[in-house]
């Protein structure tokens, strides 16, 4: 990737573009002369991109140490074999052959804003309690603080006071998420809320690429290009991906933050290690157990259905699902149906369509669509569903979080499958009842054998509702 065309060689612009970064030569679009001057004056410092000691390698950009994600190529320039990292190769290849460059010149200057917040909304009491805690963490320079907020708590607004505090002190801030949808959705809202501040959103294929603003929104991948850049780092949906990606996310976050910095974590479903740290009193945290509209979370119902997996494998739908469809409390609600595997979407779409047509839930087969990660029309279909142009949507776990539909019932087919872990099920349940007009929504887990994950997910929701009732 590249800086905005050519960075002009003024010292201020160079510092803004390059300080806090760790880049390959091909990512630094400077005139060759300028690049060499910066090198010889030690304003750009080369460092090895792969650390390889005693046979165990580490990619310095993404932190990968798994041998499975390293491979070798015979280098046509040096005539020897080089290791390269396959984990972050989408961002340009990290190999033993080419160094990364860090900035050794003057630090960039970021302005202190006296009154940066241009948002005029109001926080609910539950939101402002959490917002105050996060603001305090920034002002007191705590290393970390976690906000455990239920799905639909309205967490972006809760961040405004903390961001405002940082901007008043002339600090540099990044908001990162593993989910690109989250970044896309947040960008216009933050731009509105902080109109006098330079903001960029960085993700694969984003319009912005330079990454030289005071407030950066980025996918975790993009964070890998930063090194000791941010005073305040906010990580949204910290638990959104499987473990190995989680690991490079944590590495990237740690590398991108300054040594003296504050990291704020936002999540609806914290992982074990975070919960343990909270229990041990090592991680300051705050709960937001109520949704912005003040209603409790819909509690999932578990429906046992014998032979469910073998029925689904034979493209048959369980009776319990059929019965539930006919007797829904509010047939006006849209339907979100989760299945564990992409292949299942293809196998079941037809039978589900037939069933929905028969029960009158949809009037034409086009009213039901299916989405999965690699689906080219994913954006369009989600948009259509949000605009109620579709009545029902079959999906894999890609829609488990980050998307909001006002009024849906949620069904999970084969909820006992391993992809539906505790966090996924809590997030899936969190799709229902998002709007104040219809805060209820049904959530049904269809299974043929209760799993720990289902039980724990239900318990987590009940616990949050318990807390919420006390507010």
């Amino acid at each position: 990737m590249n800086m905005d065309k050519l960075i002009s060689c003024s010292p201020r612009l160079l510092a803004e573009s390059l300080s806090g970064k760790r880049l390959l030569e091909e990512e630094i679009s400077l005139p060759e002369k300028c690049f060499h001057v910066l090198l010889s004056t030690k304003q750009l410092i080369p460092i090895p991109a792969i650390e390889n000691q005693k046979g165990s390698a580490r990619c310095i950009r993404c932190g990968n140490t798994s041998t499975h994600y390293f491979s070798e190529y015979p280098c046509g320039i040096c005539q020897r074999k080089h290791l390269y990292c396959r984990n972050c190769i989408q961002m340009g290849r990290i190999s033993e052959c080419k160094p990364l460059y860090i900035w050794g010149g003057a630090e960039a200057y970021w302005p202190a804003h006296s009154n940066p917040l241009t948002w005029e909304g109001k926080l609910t009491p539950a939101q402002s309690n959490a917002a105050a805690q996060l603001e305090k963490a920034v002002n007191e320079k705590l290393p970390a603080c976690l906000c455990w907020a239920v799905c639909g708590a309205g967490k972006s607004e809760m961040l405004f006071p903390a961001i405002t505090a940082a901007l008043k002190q002339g600090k540099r801030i990044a908001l990162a998420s593993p989910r690109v949808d989250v970044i896309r959705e947040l960008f216009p809202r933050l731009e509105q809320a902080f109109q006098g501040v330079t903001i960029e959103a960085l993700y694969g294929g984003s319009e912005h690429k330079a990454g030289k603003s005071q407030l950066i929104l980025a996918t975790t991948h993009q964070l890998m290009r930063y090194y000791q850049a941010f005073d305040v780092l906010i990580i949204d949906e910290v638990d959104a991906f499987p473990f190995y990606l989680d690991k490079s996310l944590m590495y990237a976050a740690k590398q991108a933050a300054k040594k003296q910095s504050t990291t704020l974590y936002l999540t609806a479903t914290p992982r074990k290690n975070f919960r343990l740290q909270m229990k041990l009193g090592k991680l300051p945290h705050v709960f937001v157990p109520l949704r912005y509209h003040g209603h409790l979370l819909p509690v999932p119902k578990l429906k046992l259905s014998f032979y469910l997996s073998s029925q689904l494998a034979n493209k048959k739908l369980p009776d319990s699902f059929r019965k539930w469809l006919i007797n829904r409390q509010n047939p006006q609600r849209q339907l979100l149906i989760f299945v564990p595997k992409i292949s299942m979407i293809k196998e079941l779409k037809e039978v589900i369509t037939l069933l929905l047509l028969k029960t009158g839930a949809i009037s034409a087969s086009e009213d039901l669509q299916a989405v999965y990660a690699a689906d080219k029309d994913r954006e369009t279909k989600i948009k259509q569903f949000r605009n109620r142009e579709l009545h029902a949507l079959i999906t894999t776990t890609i829609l488990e979080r980050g998307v909001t539909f006002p009024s849906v019932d949620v069904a999970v087919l084969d909820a006992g499958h391993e992809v539906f872990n505790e966090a996924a099920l809590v997030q899936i349940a969190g799709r229902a009842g998002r709007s104040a007009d219809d805060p209820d929504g049904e959530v049904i887990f269809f299974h043929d054998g209760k799993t720990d994950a289902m039980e724990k997910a239900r318990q987590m929701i009940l616990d949050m509702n318990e807390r919420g009732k006390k507010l």
Partner: protein
Amino acid sequence: MNSCVYCHEQIEQPLTWSTWLTVKKNSVLCAFCTGKLEIISGKRCKVCSRAWGSSICLDCQQWRELGDNIERNYSIFHYNDTIREMITQWKFRGDYLLREIFRNELKSAFEKQFADNNAPLAIVPIPLSESRMQERGFNQSLALAEMLDAPVKQVLRRKSGEKQAKKNRKARLKRDNPFFIAEPLKQAALIVDDIYTTGTTVRQAAQQLKLHGCPAVYSLTIARS
């Protein structure tokens, strides 16, 4: 357990008597990724390998009238979105390991199509310019050539020039020949490369080879676009 070199999903190998008792060729792709590759089958142009109802396609008839300098090209896959993305990641992003995706098919195409050629063939890779080599660190054509059981002869060199993927067909056909010979090759040659588009690259390489005494030139390419 193996995982797919392309999507990293685990490769499920059902345990049956045959997988248990025989040593089977290991697939590096999962069934899902394999399923998205399309092998060219059925009728094809006998010169350039494009799917074609009769024996020689119109393009190749034109080449023949001008005096063609290759005997024939054999391509393995249709150039669809999946293979385009795989080749992009392999060649442009530099994910060298992905050549393994093509190993089995490339070897078997070589054996079926070219191994019992009258005269033994020398494998000739298309050379990379100096600046491309600086960027990528390896030559994809050589990476393919080295997977075959035949002597590789790097007899061609390339003058430095611009990326050809960006040029249109007309510009590519008109352009001066970017190749020159480092060392004459007196035996029949098989050029190995990733994609056959208009066939210009292969023919420019063949022109140089033949000018310097190579009796016949064939080509084997992964994808036919």
